[in-house]
């Protein structure tokens, strides 16, 4: 999917300014950004709920058209179902709105309801279910019509860890079956865990985009965490004078000296060799920037 030069304004307020994204088929794409950055506006444009002032969206190379609705599944952050409608009827209705036939929808729904162990809820009303239960129904409704593109806005909020895991596994399975998944969340650990690519939107502009690994490389600091067991600490300090060193603490089971080393242009194996001359190296790892750190750094700069 391609998003090309999208601009959207509401009156005086600019929601999106010249935003372009390129989303690889069959990947999980993390759409990040602080509150009010324009993520929801972008998602609504992709869903054809609103239309951009400028720019275009392409799905499978075709400009977005009304008939693409059936290829897209959307789970909004503010979940909603008809409170006084029965679960089964409601799911059938929403599936039919997405273009499924009644028979087909019923077959697929039964499959999903059985998989999630909620077939007993078919005749219950949403208002009788707990929040987490309703979320499960919502998830099924979103993925039921096997869309090519799935958009999840905060998919895990409201789920307990067991159910969150269940949903995570289902999302990964859908990806493996070829669905493209756009994933908008503030839970950075799930971005680390699941996303192949990310984009960061701030103040209605895209500021970062790319494969997660590449983005991390951009924000690489070449700082290494080092733990050494040594009784010649002062000599070691002198030997490391060419590097910037800071005391650091990280989790370790040994009673070692912990510090961080900013490598700069130097090679890590050179550092390691120096370290080895002074004692036993218990920890040596690059301090990889987390998505969380990248997010904060990018947004605050």
């Amino acid at each position, binding site marked *: 999917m391609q998003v090309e030069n999208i601009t959207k304004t*509401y*009156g005086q307020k600019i929601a999106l300014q010249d935003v372009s994204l390129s989303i690889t088929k069959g990947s999980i794409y993390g759409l990040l950004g602080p509150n009010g950055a324009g993520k929801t506006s972008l998602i*609504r444009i992709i*869903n*054809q*709920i*609103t239309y951009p002032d400028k720019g275009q969206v392409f799905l499978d190379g075709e400009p977005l058209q*009304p008939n693409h*609705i059936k290829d*897209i599944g*959307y789970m*909004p952050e*503010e*979940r*909603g*179902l*008809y*409170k006084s*409608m029965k679960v089964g009827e409601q799911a059938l*209705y*929403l599936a*039919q*709105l*997405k273009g499924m036939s009644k028979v087909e929808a019923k077959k697929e729904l039964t499959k999903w309801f059985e998989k999630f162990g909620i077939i007993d809820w078919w005749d219950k009303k949403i208002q009788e279910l707990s929040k987490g239960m309703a979320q499960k129904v919502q998830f099924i*409704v979103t993925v039921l019509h096997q869309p090519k593109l799935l958009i999840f806005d905060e998919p895990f909020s409201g789920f307990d860890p067991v159910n969150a895991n269940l949903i995570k596994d289902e999302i990964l399975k859908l990806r493996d079956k070829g669905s493209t998944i756009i994933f908008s969340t503030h839970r950075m650990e799930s971005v680390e865990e699941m996303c192949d690519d990310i984009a960061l939107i701030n103040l209605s502009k895209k500021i970062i985009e790319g494969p997660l690994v590449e983005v991390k490389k951009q924000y690489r600091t070449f700082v290494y965490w080092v733990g050494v067991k040594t009784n010649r600490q002062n000599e070691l300090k002198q030997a490391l004078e060419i590097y910037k060193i800071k005391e650091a603490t990280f989790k370790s089971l040994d009673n070692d000296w912990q510090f961080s080393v900013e490598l700069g242009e130097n090679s890590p194996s050179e550092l390691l060799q120096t370290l080895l001359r002074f004692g036993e190296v218990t920890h040596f790892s690059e301090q990889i920037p987390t998505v969380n750190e990248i997010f904060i750094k990018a947004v605050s700069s």
Partner: protein
Amino acid sequence: MSVLNLIIKREFIAKVRNKSFIVMTFVSPLIFVGIAFLIGYLSNMRSEVKHIGVHDESGYFIDSFKNTSSYQYEDVSHITKSEIKDSLLSKRWEGVLYIPKLDNFKDFEKNVEYISEDSPSLGFVSQAERVLSDKLTKENWSAQGIDTLKIEAARIDVDLNLVKSSGEETVRGLNEIKIAIGSGFGYMIMMFIVIYGNMVMRSVIEEKTSRIIEIIISSVKPFHLMMGKIIGTTLAGLLQFAIWAIVGGILFFLAQSFFGLNTSSLQQANELTQQSPDSMAMIKMYIEEIKSLPLLSMLIYFIVYFIGGYFLYSSIYAAIGAAVDNETDTQQFMFPVIMPLMLAVYVGFFTVIHEPHGTIATAFSLIPFTSPIVMLMRIPFGVPAYQIILSIVLLLGTFVGMVWVASKIYRIGILSYGKKPSWKELLKWLKY
């Protein structure tokens, strides 16, 4: 199945399954009939007998006041005026007519008094005045040597026969029926618009607050959702109306066969006629008159105006529902919606009844916001075809325009949360 059909179906089923629909369909006619009977009973209820004293010093009127079921007259000429005032305080009489002794008949005009604690009813006053005037006039004639019998014999009373230009003879009282049916239909349209318009509005607000709106409009166009909602609710309304029409038709048929057949059996007819000759004849006459009205075409007009008026207003209601977050915020927008409806009903009740084809009635039956109600009230009186066509065309045109405006507001409104928009903002939304 197209999405519009799906939405219509869902809305229809959601409305019809709702308990309030069932209650309204089956209980409200009962309540209506109950209230009608109650009002009829209360207004026909015999009030307690009022005792009126007549203190007649002139001696002309002792026999003039006849006792009725409501008023009993008593000669109190032997009691003095000051005593009368005391006895009035003791509530022996409701009031006392005090007629002094005067030589000149003309002097009676200003000198008869009615003394009472409470103000008498207008009916009683004019009744008493008529009795006094008639009696005095006759006495005056005799006194002046005019032959009273000749005058009575020369008196001529005219009863107008009401004939339509089409030639058929109409029965007296038909206008009452026309007014009743016209007002009934007009009033019913207003009630439907208010009740079902509110339903549309509430259902929009419900979708907005439950946030399902975002899921739905990621599948369908907001315009389809709005129209589906309006049409689905209309169908529910029409179903309700159909149930009422069928039940009403059956009741009418039953009433007709009850009164019609029973009178054909001689004995019962005699009995009934003896009991209440007037009311029996009245009921038969009314049934005949209702049958003589163009009921079918009126029903068709009712449906046309109902759909037009209802669509017009419910698209406004839908837009209001979309613009706000909860029902309490709707107040500021409701008044301009209710106002033309109220105006239409008042114009109907006060103008159409007196002058069904006057300028005001005609104008309001063409203005789309009032035409569904006012025109329906006029139709039983016979409206030229070109006026009906013009008013329907205007109504449909406005309806299309209004739906366009409403769908613009709706499209923006359903996704805006947290603030109560002003009229100015709503206008701005039209430009998005």
